[in-house]
Protein backbone atom coordinates (compact mmCIF):
# COMPACT_ATOMS: atom_id res chain seq x y z
CA UNK A 1 0.00 0.00 0.00
CA UNK A 2 1.57 3.27 -1.12
CA UNK A 3 1.06 6.68 0.44
CA UNK A 4 -1.16 7.70 -2.47
CA UNK A 5 -3.54 4.82 -1.84
CA UNK A 6 -3.50 4.98 1.95
CA UNK A 7 -7.16 5.11 3.07
CA UNK A 8 -7.88 8.06 5.30
CA UNK A 9 -10.89 8.98 7.39
CA UNK A 10 -11.86 12.61 7.26
CA UNK A 11 -13.82 14.36 9.99
CA UNK A 12 -16.24 15.55 7.29
CA UNK A 13 -17.36 11.97 6.73
CA UNK A 14 -18.75 12.02 10.29
CA UNK A 15 -20.30 15.45 10.62
CA UNK A 16 -21.47 16.12 7.05
CA UNK A 17 -24.35 13.65 7.16
CA UNK A 18 -26.12 14.75 10.38
CA UNK A 19 -25.42 18.41 9.62
CA UNK A 20 -26.75 18.09 6.05
CA UNK A 21 -29.81 16.15 7.22
CA UNK A 22 -30.65 18.63 9.99
CA UNK A 23 -30.15 21.61 7.68
CA UNK A 24 -32.32 20.23 4.89
CA UNK A 25 -35.00 19.11 7.33
CA UNK A 26 -35.13 22.64 8.76
CA UNK A 27 -35.24 24.14 5.29
CA UNK A 28 -38.01 21.77 4.24
CA UNK A 29 -40.05 22.39 7.37
CA UNK A 30 -39.76 26.19 7.23
CA UNK A 31 -40.25 26.08 3.47
CA UNK A 32 -43.56 24.27 3.85
CA UNK A 33 -44.28 26.76 6.64
CA UNK A 34 -44.48 29.45 3.98
CA UNK A 35 -47.81 27.96 3.04
CA UNK A 36 -50.67 28.51 5.49
CA UNK A 37 -51.00 24.84 6.35
CA UNK A 38 -49.50 24.24 9.78
CA UNK A 39 -52.19 26.16 11.62
CA UNK A 40 -54.96 24.89 9.40
CA UNK A 41 -53.99 21.30 10.01
CA UNK A 42 -53.38 21.69 13.78
CA UNK A 43 -49.65 20.97 13.50
CA UNK A 44 -48.84 24.32 15.09
CA UNK A 45 -51.09 23.32 18.00
CA UNK A 46 -48.61 20.63 19.03
CA UNK A 47 -46.71 21.97 22.05
CA UNK A 48 -43.39 23.43 20.94
CA UNK A 49 -44.45 23.83 17.30
CA UNK A 50 -46.48 27.03 17.63
CA UNK A 51 -43.72 28.94 15.83
CA UNK A 52 -44.58 27.06 12.63
CA UNK A 53 -47.69 29.24 12.32
CA UNK A 54 -45.62 32.43 12.56
CA UNK A 55 -44.85 33.30 8.94
CA UNK A 56 -42.15 35.79 9.86
CA UNK A 57 -40.40 33.25 12.15
CA UNK A 58 -40.40 30.51 9.51
CA UNK A 59 -39.28 33.00 6.86
CA UNK A 60 -36.43 34.20 9.07
CA UNK A 61 -35.26 30.66 9.82
CA UNK A 62 -35.57 29.69 6.14
CA UNK A 63 -33.32 32.61 5.16
CA UNK A 64 -30.79 31.78 7.89
CA UNK A 65 -30.84 28.19 6.66
CA UNK A 66 -30.14 29.42 3.12
CA UNK A 67 -27.14 31.43 4.38
CA UNK A 68 -25.74 28.33 6.13
CA UNK A 69 -26.58 26.13 3.13
CA UNK A 70 -24.71 28.31 0.64
CA UNK A 71 -21.64 28.36 2.89
CA UNK A 72 -21.92 24.62 3.41
CA UNK A 73 -22.23 23.87 -0.33
CA UNK A 74 -19.03 25.73 -1.13
CA UNK A 75 -17.24 24.12 1.82
CA UNK A 76 -18.36 20.64 0.72
CA UNK A 77 -17.33 21.18 -2.91
CA UNK A 78 -13.85 22.47 -2.00
CA UNK A 79 -13.25 19.76 0.60
CA UNK A 80 -14.40 17.07 -1.84
CA UNK A 81 -12.08 18.25 -4.60
CA UNK A 82 -9.24 19.15 -2.23
CA UNK A 83 -9.22 16.12 0.05
CA UNK A 84 -11.63 13.36 -0.77
CA UNK A 85 -11.63 12.98 -4.53
CA UNK A 86 -8.47 10.85 -4.54
CA UNK A 87 -10.21 8.30 -2.38
CA UNK A 88 -13.86 8.62 -3.36
CA UNK A 89 -16.05 9.21 -6.41
CA UNK A 90 -19.55 10.64 -6.53
CA UNK A 91 -22.31 8.12 -7.18
CA UNK A 92 -25.01 8.70 -9.81
CA UNK A 93 -27.41 9.25 -6.91
CA UNK A 94 -25.15 12.07 -5.76
CA UNK A 95 -25.37 13.70 -9.20
CA UNK A 96 -29.18 13.53 -9.05
CA UNK A 97 -29.11 15.12 -5.58
CA UNK A 98 -26.67 17.81 -6.72
CA UNK A 99 -28.80 18.67 -9.76
CA UNK A 100 -31.95 19.00 -7.65
CA UNK A 101 -30.17 20.99 -4.92
CA UNK A 102 -28.83 23.32 -7.62
CA UNK A 103 -32.33 23.82 -9.04
CA UNK A 104 -33.76 24.44 -5.57
CA UNK A 105 -30.98 26.94 -4.86
CA UNK A 106 -31.33 28.80 -8.16
CA UNK A 107 -35.10 29.16 -7.83
CA UNK A 108 -34.58 30.13 -4.18
CA UNK A 109 -32.12 32.85 -5.20
CA UNK A 110 -34.70 34.28 -7.60
CA UNK A 111 -37.29 34.18 -4.81
CA UNK A 112 -34.93 36.12 -2.54
CA UNK A 113 -34.27 38.64 -5.32
CA UNK A 114 -38.01 39.07 -5.82
CA UNK A 115 -38.38 39.92 -2.14
CA UNK A 116 -35.94 42.83 -2.36
CA UNK A 117 -37.68 46.21 -2.33
CA UNK A 118 -36.63 47.37 -5.80
CA UNK A 119 -36.93 44.11 -7.72
CA UNK A 120 -40.16 43.45 -9.62
CA UNK A 121 -40.79 40.29 -11.65
CA UNK A 122 -43.74 39.55 -13.90
CA UNK A 123 -46.61 37.58 -12.30
CA UNK A 124 -45.99 34.58 -14.55
CA UNK A 125 -42.27 34.47 -13.74
CA UNK A 126 -42.99 34.86 -10.02
CA UNK A 127 -45.44 32.00 -10.14
CA UNK A 128 -43.05 29.78 -12.11
CA UNK A 129 -40.31 30.48 -9.54
CA UNK A 130 -42.63 29.78 -6.60
CA UNK A 131 -44.07 26.58 -7.97
CA UNK A 132 -40.79 25.22 -9.35
CA UNK A 133 -39.02 25.88 -6.02
CA UNK A 134 -41.68 23.80 -4.29
CA UNK A 135 -41.74 21.14 -7.04
CA UNK A 136 -37.95 20.65 -7.01
CA UNK A 137 -38.07 20.27 -3.23
CA UNK A 138 -40.81 17.64 -3.57
CA UNK A 139 -38.70 15.76 -6.15
CA UNK A 140 -35.66 16.07 -3.88
CA UNK A 141 -37.63 14.59 -0.99
CA UNK A 142 -39.00 11.78 -3.16
CA UNK A 143 -35.55 10.87 -4.51
CA UNK A 144 -34.10 11.20 -0.99
CA UNK A 145 -36.54 8.58 0.27
CA UNK A 146 -35.86 6.28 -2.72
CA UNK A 147 -32.09 6.60 -2.25
CA UNK A 148 -32.40 6.00 1.48
CA UNK A 149 -34.41 2.81 0.94
CA UNK A 150 -32.08 1.59 -1.81
CA UNK A 151 -29.03 2.67 0.23
CA UNK A 152 -27.57 4.88 -2.47
CA UNK A 153 -25.16 7.21 -0.73
CA UNK A 154 -23.17 10.15 -2.03
CA UNK A 155 -19.73 8.55 -2.27
CA UNK A 156 -18.22 5.30 -3.52
CA UNK A 157 -14.69 4.26 -2.67
CA UNK A 158 -12.37 4.22 -5.65
CA UNK A 159 -10.61 1.02 -6.57
CA UNK A 160 -7.44 0.50 -4.57
CA UNK A 161 -8.82 2.06 -1.38
Amino acid at each position, binding site marked *: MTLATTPRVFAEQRFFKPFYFLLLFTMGLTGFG*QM*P*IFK*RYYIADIPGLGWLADFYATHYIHYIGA*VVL*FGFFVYAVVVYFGLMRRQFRLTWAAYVRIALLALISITGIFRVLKNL*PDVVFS*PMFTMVIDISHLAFMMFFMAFGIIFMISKKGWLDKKLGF
Partner: protein
Amino acid sequence: MPKELSRRSFLKGSLVAACATCASQVPLPASAKAKDGQELATLIDIRKCVGCEACVEACREVNDFKYPEPEKPFPKMYPNRVKVADWSDEEGREVRDRLTPYNWLTIQSATVEVDGEETELSFPRRCMHCQNPPCADLCPWGAARKLENGITVIHSDICLGGKKCQVVCPWDIPQRQTGVGLYLDILPSLAGNGVMYKCDRCYNRIAEGEMPACIEECPEDVQIIGPRDEIVAEAHRLAEEEGAYIYGETENGGTNTLYVSPVPFETLNKAISKGPGQPHFDKVEDQMAHADNLAKAMLIAPFAGLAAAVGRVYKVSKKLDDKTGEVL
Protein backbone atom coordinates in the same frame (compact mmCIF):
# COMPACT_ATOMS: atom_id res chain seq x y z
CA MET B 1 -87.14 68.71 17.64
CA PRO B 2 -85.41 68.98 14.30
CA LYS B 3 -81.79 67.91 14.15
CA GLU B 4 -79.31 70.73 13.78
CA LEU B 5 -77.62 70.58 10.42
CA SER B 6 -73.88 70.83 10.97
CA ARG B 7 -71.46 72.03 8.32
CA ARG B 8 -70.04 68.52 8.20
CA SER B 9 -73.35 66.72 7.67
CA PHE B 10 -74.49 69.32 5.13
CA LEU B 11 -71.30 68.92 3.14
CA LYS B 12 -71.46 65.16 3.47
CA GLY B 13 -74.95 64.93 2.01
CA SER B 14 -74.56 67.45 -0.73
CA LEU B 15 -71.13 66.30 -1.84
CA VAL B 16 -72.14 62.65 -2.06
CA ALA B 17 -75.05 63.67 -4.25
CA ALA B 18 -72.87 65.88 -6.40
CA CYS B 19 -70.17 63.26 -6.81
CA ALA B 20 -72.62 60.50 -7.57
CA THR B 21 -73.73 62.38 -10.64
CA CYS B 22 -70.22 63.20 -11.73
CA ALA B 23 -69.06 60.57 -14.20
CA SER B 24 -66.24 62.42 -15.89
CA GLN B 25 -62.88 60.70 -16.13
CA VAL B 26 -60.15 63.07 -15.09
CA PRO B 27 -56.86 62.25 -16.77
CA LEU B 28 -53.79 61.72 -14.65
CA PRO B 29 -51.86 65.00 -14.87
CA ALA B 30 -48.32 64.77 -16.21
CA SER B 31 -47.00 65.80 -12.80
CA ALA B 32 -48.70 62.79 -11.25
CA LYS B 33 -47.21 60.26 -13.62
CA ALA B 34 -44.37 58.04 -12.44
CA LYS B 35 -40.95 59.08 -13.64
CA ASP B 36 -38.56 56.37 -14.78
CA GLY B 37 -38.14 53.89 -11.95
CA GLN B 38 -40.10 56.09 -9.55
CA GLU B 39 -42.99 54.83 -7.52
CA LEU B 40 -46.24 56.75 -7.34
CA ALA B 41 -47.40 57.77 -3.90
CA THR B 42 -50.49 59.50 -2.57
CA LEU B 43 -50.71 62.12 0.13
CA ILE B 44 -53.89 62.21 2.23
CA ASP B 45 -54.39 65.48 4.05
CA ILE B 46 -56.61 64.59 6.98
CA ARG B 47 -57.27 68.28 7.67
CA LYS B 48 -59.23 68.59 4.44
CA CYS B 49 -61.44 65.49 4.73
CA VAL B 50 -65.08 66.10 5.62
CA GLY B 51 -66.00 62.41 5.70
CA CYS B 52 -68.51 62.69 2.84
CA GLU B 53 -67.64 59.18 1.59
CA ALA B 54 -67.53 60.34 -2.02
CA CYS B 55 -64.26 58.43 -2.32
CA VAL B 56 -65.90 55.28 -0.92
CA GLU B 57 -68.76 55.49 -3.41
CA ALA B 58 -66.42 56.22 -6.31
CA CYS B 59 -64.21 53.29 -5.39
CA ARG B 60 -67.19 50.95 -5.21
CA GLU B 61 -68.54 52.18 -8.52
CA VAL B 62 -65.40 51.88 -10.62
CA ASN B 63 -64.22 48.64 -9.03
CA ASP B 64 -67.59 46.94 -9.03
CA PHE B 65 -66.56 44.66 -11.90
CA LYS B 66 -63.67 43.31 -9.80
CA TYR B 67 -65.86 42.26 -6.88
CA PRO B 68 -66.38 38.54 -6.18
CA GLU B 69 -69.46 36.66 -7.30
CA PRO B 70 -69.11 33.47 -5.26
CA GLU B 71 -70.60 30.11 -6.08
CA LYS B 72 -72.92 28.72 -3.43
CA PRO B 73 -73.15 26.45 -1.52
CA PHE B 74 -69.55 26.81 -0.38
CA PRO B 75 -67.42 23.66 -0.28
CA LYS B 76 -67.32 22.02 3.14
CA MET B 77 -63.98 22.73 4.78
CA TYR B 78 -61.76 20.07 6.34
CA PRO B 79 -60.76 20.54 9.08
CA ASN B 80 -63.64 22.73 10.15
CA ARG B 81 -61.45 25.29 11.93
CA VAL B 82 -61.27 27.03 8.55
CA LYS B 83 -64.16 29.48 8.66
CA VAL B 84 -66.20 30.73 5.76
CA ALA B 85 -65.80 34.44 5.08
CA ASP B 86 -68.89 35.59 3.24
CA TRP B 87 -69.73 39.21 2.48
CA SER B 88 -71.68 38.44 -0.65
CA ASP B 89 -75.25 38.80 0.65
CA GLU B 90 -77.05 42.10 0.24
CA GLU B 91 -76.24 43.24 3.77
CA GLY B 92 -72.56 42.29 3.51
CA ARG B 93 -72.10 44.10 0.22
CA GLU B 94 -73.48 47.30 1.74
CA VAL B 95 -71.04 47.42 4.65
CA ARG B 96 -69.04 50.65 4.53
CA ASP B 97 -67.71 51.12 8.05
CA ARG B 98 -64.86 48.66 7.60
CA LEU B 99 -62.79 47.07 4.85
CA THR B 100 -64.45 44.08 3.19
CA PRO B 101 -64.03 42.28 -0.16
CA TYR B 102 -66.68 44.72 -1.45
CA ASN B 103 -65.42 47.83 0.33
CA TRP B 104 -61.76 48.56 -0.28
CA LEU B 105 -61.84 52.03 1.22
CA THR B 106 -63.44 53.06 4.47
CA ILE B 107 -63.74 56.32 6.36
CA GLN B 108 -62.49 56.38 9.92
CA SER B 109 -63.22 59.20 12.33
CA ALA B 110 -61.72 60.45 15.56
CA THR B 111 -62.68 63.16 18.01
CA VAL B 112 -59.52 64.91 19.12
CA GLU B 113 -58.43 68.28 20.40
CA VAL B 114 -57.00 70.56 17.73
CA ASP B 115 -55.68 73.95 18.88
CA GLY B 116 -57.62 73.58 22.12
CA GLU B 117 -60.89 72.86 20.37
CA GLU B 118 -62.61 69.48 20.24
CA THR B 119 -62.74 68.51 16.59
CA GLU B 120 -64.01 65.50 14.68
CA LEU B 121 -61.54 64.40 12.07
CA SER B 122 -62.29 61.87 9.34
CA PHE B 123 -59.99 60.22 6.89
CA PRO B 124 -59.99 57.51 4.22
CA ARG B 125 -58.26 54.23 5.05
CA ARG B 126 -57.20 51.60 2.55
CA CYS B 127 -54.09 49.64 1.56
CA MET B 128 -50.92 51.61 2.34
CA HIS B 129 -49.12 50.18 -0.75
CA CYS B 130 -45.85 49.51 1.07
CA GLN B 131 -42.56 50.02 -0.74
CA ASN B 132 -41.51 46.55 0.40
CA PRO B 133 -44.88 44.85 0.89
CA PRO B 134 -44.84 41.75 3.12
CA CYS B 135 -48.07 40.55 1.49
CA ALA B 136 -46.37 40.38 -1.90
CA ASP B 137 -43.03 39.15 -0.58
CA LEU B 138 -44.50 36.35 1.48
CA CYS B 139 -47.36 35.27 -0.77
CA PRO B 140 -46.48 31.61 -1.40
CA TRP B 141 -48.30 31.55 -4.70
CA GLY B 142 -47.25 34.79 -6.38
CA ALA B 143 -50.81 36.13 -6.35
CA ALA B 144 -49.91 39.31 -4.49
CA ARG B 145 -47.25 41.41 -6.15
CA LYS B 146 -45.93 44.90 -6.43
CA LEU B 147 -46.04 46.76 -9.72
CA GLU B 148 -43.21 48.96 -10.95
CA ASN B 149 -45.22 52.09 -10.15
CA GLY B 150 -45.44 51.08 -6.50
CA ILE B 151 -48.96 49.66 -6.45
CA THR B 152 -49.47 46.32 -4.72
CA VAL B 153 -52.15 44.18 -6.31
CA ILE B 154 -53.67 40.77 -5.58
CA HIS B 155 -54.54 38.78 -8.68
CA SER B 156 -57.97 37.35 -8.00
CA ASP B 157 -57.57 34.65 -10.66
CA ILE B 158 -54.44 33.26 -8.95
CA CYS B 159 -55.15 33.86 -5.25
CA LEU B 160 -56.15 30.81 -3.19
CA GLY B 161 -57.41 32.80 -0.22
CA GLY B 162 -55.05 31.34 2.37
CA LYS B 163 -55.16 34.72 4.16
CA LYS B 164 -51.40 34.79 4.70
CA CYS B 165 -51.28 38.28 3.17
CA GLN B 166 -53.69 39.54 5.84
CA VAL B 167 -51.75 37.86 8.63
CA VAL B 168 -48.42 39.40 7.56
CA CYS B 169 -49.89 42.82 6.68
CA PRO B 170 -49.09 45.23 9.53
CA TRP B 171 -52.53 46.81 9.01
CA ASP B 172 -54.50 43.57 8.28
CA ILE B 173 -55.79 45.11 5.05
CA PRO B 174 -56.70 42.26 2.63
CA GLN B 175 -60.14 40.74 3.19
CA ARG B 176 -61.30 37.28 2.19
CA GLN B 177 -64.36 36.12 0.28
CA THR B 178 -65.05 32.39 0.28
CA GLY B 179 -66.52 30.50 -2.67
CA VAL B 180 -64.63 32.18 -5.46
CA GLY B 181 -61.33 31.68 -7.25
CA LEU B 182 -58.82 29.06 -8.20
CA TYR B 183 -59.09 26.93 -5.04
CA LEU B 184 -62.49 25.68 -6.26
CA ASP B 185 -60.67 23.93 -9.13
CA ILE B 186 -57.88 22.40 -7.03
CA LEU B 187 -58.71 21.04 -3.58
CA PRO B 188 -61.69 23.14 -2.46
CA SER B 189 -62.15 21.36 0.86
CA LEU B 190 -58.49 20.97 1.76
CA ALA B 191 -56.54 23.99 0.52
CA GLY B 192 -57.37 27.66 0.18
CA ASN B 193 -60.63 29.34 1.04
CA GLY B 194 -61.49 31.94 -1.60
CA VAL B 195 -59.77 35.11 -2.73
CA MET B 196 -58.28 38.07 -0.86
CA TYR B 197 -59.37 41.55 -1.92
CA LYS B 198 -58.03 45.01 -1.23
CA CYS B 199 -57.45 48.40 -2.81
CA ASP B 200 -55.42 48.15 -6.01
CA ARG B 201 -55.27 51.95 -6.28
CA CYS B 202 -57.14 51.69 -9.58
CA TYR B 203 -54.03 50.30 -11.30
CA ASN B 204 -56.05 49.70 -14.47
CA ARG B 205 -57.15 53.35 -14.58
CA ILE B 206 -53.61 54.57 -13.90
CA ALA B 207 -52.35 52.33 -16.72
CA GLU B 208 -54.77 54.15 -19.01
CA GLY B 209 -53.63 57.55 -17.79
CA GLU B 210 -56.60 58.17 -15.51
CA MET B 211 -56.73 59.13 -11.86
CA PRO B 212 -57.69 56.65 -9.13
CA ALA B 213 -61.42 57.06 -8.54
CA CYS B 214 -61.07 58.11 -4.88
CA ILE B 215 -58.79 60.98 -5.84
CA GLU B 216 -60.79 61.99 -8.89
CA GLU B 217 -64.11 62.21 -7.07
CA CYS B 218 -62.95 63.87 -3.85
CA PRO B 219 -64.60 67.30 -3.68
CA GLU B 220 -62.14 68.56 -1.09
CA ASP B 221 -58.94 67.47 -2.85
CA VAL B 222 -57.97 65.48 0.22
CA GLN B 223 -55.60 63.31 -1.80
CA ILE B 224 -52.89 64.12 -4.28
CA ILE B 225 -50.82 61.64 -6.27
CA GLY B 226 -47.35 61.90 -7.73
CA PRO B 227 -43.80 60.55 -7.73
CA ARG B 228 -42.92 59.51 -4.18
CA ASP B 229 -40.04 61.92 -3.68
CA GLU B 230 -42.32 64.84 -4.58
CA ILE B 231 -45.08 63.55 -2.29
CA VAL B 232 -42.61 63.15 0.59
CA ALA B 233 -41.29 66.67 -0.06
CA GLU B 234 -44.82 68.07 0.02
CA ALA B 235 -45.55 66.22 3.28
CA HIS B 236 -42.41 67.71 4.80
CA ARG B 237 -43.39 71.17 3.59
CA LEU B 238 -46.77 70.82 5.27
CA ALA B 239 -45.10 69.54 8.43
CA GLU B 240 -42.64 72.42 8.57
CA GLU B 241 -44.85 75.28 7.43
CA GLU B 242 -48.17 74.23 8.94
CA GLY B 243 -47.14 72.02 11.83
CA ALA B 244 -48.68 68.85 10.40
CA TYR B 245 -47.64 65.33 11.41
CA ILE B 246 -46.64 62.66 8.89
CA TYR B 247 -47.52 58.96 8.77
CA GLY B 248 -46.32 56.47 6.16
CA GLU B 249 -42.96 57.92 5.27
CA THR B 250 -41.04 55.41 7.37
CA GLU B 251 -43.74 53.01 8.56
CA ASN B 252 -42.95 49.45 7.50
CA GLY B 253 -39.83 50.79 5.79
CA GLY B 254 -41.85 53.37 3.84
CA THR B 255 -45.25 53.22 2.18
CA ASN B 256 -46.69 54.80 -0.94
CA THR B 257 -49.56 56.26 1.06
CA LEU B 258 -48.65 59.19 3.27
CA TYR B 259 -50.98 60.95 5.70
CA VAL B 260 -50.63 64.41 7.18
CA SER B 261 -52.59 65.22 10.32
CA PRO B 262 -53.05 68.26 12.54
CA VAL B 263 -52.48 66.07 15.62
CA PRO B 264 -49.83 63.42 16.34
CA PHE B 265 -50.72 59.99 15.02
CA GLU B 266 -50.39 58.52 18.51
CA THR B 267 -53.32 60.76 19.49
CA LEU B 268 -55.28 59.83 16.41
CA ASN B 269 -54.58 56.15 16.93
CA LYS B 270 -56.02 56.27 20.45
CA ALA B 271 -59.21 57.94 19.18
CA ILE B 272 -60.13 55.63 16.29
CA SER B 273 -62.05 52.36 16.31
CA LYS B 274 -59.63 49.55 15.60
CA GLY B 275 -60.36 45.94 14.81
CA PRO B 276 -61.07 43.69 11.83
CA GLY B 277 -61.16 45.83 8.70
CA GLN B 278 -60.38 48.97 10.70
CA PRO B 279 -56.66 49.69 10.45
CA HIS B 280 -54.61 51.34 13.19
CA PHE B 281 -52.15 54.24 13.08
CA ASP B 282 -49.47 52.53 15.22
CA LYS B 283 -45.79 52.85 14.54
CA VAL B 284 -44.72 49.95 12.32
CA GLU B 285 -41.18 48.63 12.07
CA ASP B 286 -39.89 47.45 8.69
CA GLN B 287 -41.31 43.92 8.64
CA MET B 288 -39.07 42.75 5.82
CA ALA B 289 -35.80 44.26 7.12
CA HIS B 290 -34.62 40.84 8.27
CA ALA B 291 -35.05 39.45 4.76
CA ASP B 292 -33.08 42.28 3.17
CA ASN B 293 -30.22 41.88 5.66
CA LEU B 294 -30.12 38.11 5.32
CA ALA B 295 -30.15 38.43 1.53
CA LYS B 296 -26.84 40.31 1.86
CA ALA B 297 -25.55 37.56 4.17
CA MET B 298 -26.37 35.04 1.43
CA LEU B 299 -23.85 36.80 -0.80
CA ILE B 300 -21.14 36.55 1.86
CA ALA B 301 -21.88 32.96 2.94
CA PRO B 302 -20.18 31.22 -0.05
CA PHE B 303 -16.98 33.19 0.57
CA ALA B 304 -17.07 32.21 4.25
CA GLY B 305 -17.52 28.57 3.20
CA LEU B 306 -14.66 28.91 0.72
CA ALA B 307 -12.32 30.42 3.31
CA ALA B 308 -13.16 27.71 5.85
CA ALA B 309 -12.69 24.95 3.28
CA VAL B 310 -9.38 26.28 1.94
CA GLY B 311 -8.09 26.55 5.49
CA ARG B 312 -9.24 23.01 6.19
CA VAL B 313 -7.67 21.55 3.04
CA TYR B 314 -4.40 23.37 3.74
CA LYS B 315 -4.31 22.15 7.35
CA VAL B 316 -5.06 18.52 6.43
CA SER B 317 -2.61 18.52 3.50
CA LYS B 318 0.16 19.51 5.88
CA LYS B 319 -0.72 16.63 8.17
CA LEU B 320 -0.91 14.08 5.36
CA ASP B 321 1.36 11.16 6.06
CA ASP B 322 0.86 7.46 6.50
CA LYS B 323 -1.37 7.73 9.57
CA THR B 324 -3.89 5.24 8.27
CA GLY B 325 -7.21 5.08 9.99
CA GLU B 326 -6.68 8.28 11.95
CA VAL B 327 -9.39 10.85 11.63
CA LEU B 328 -7.93 13.89 9.90
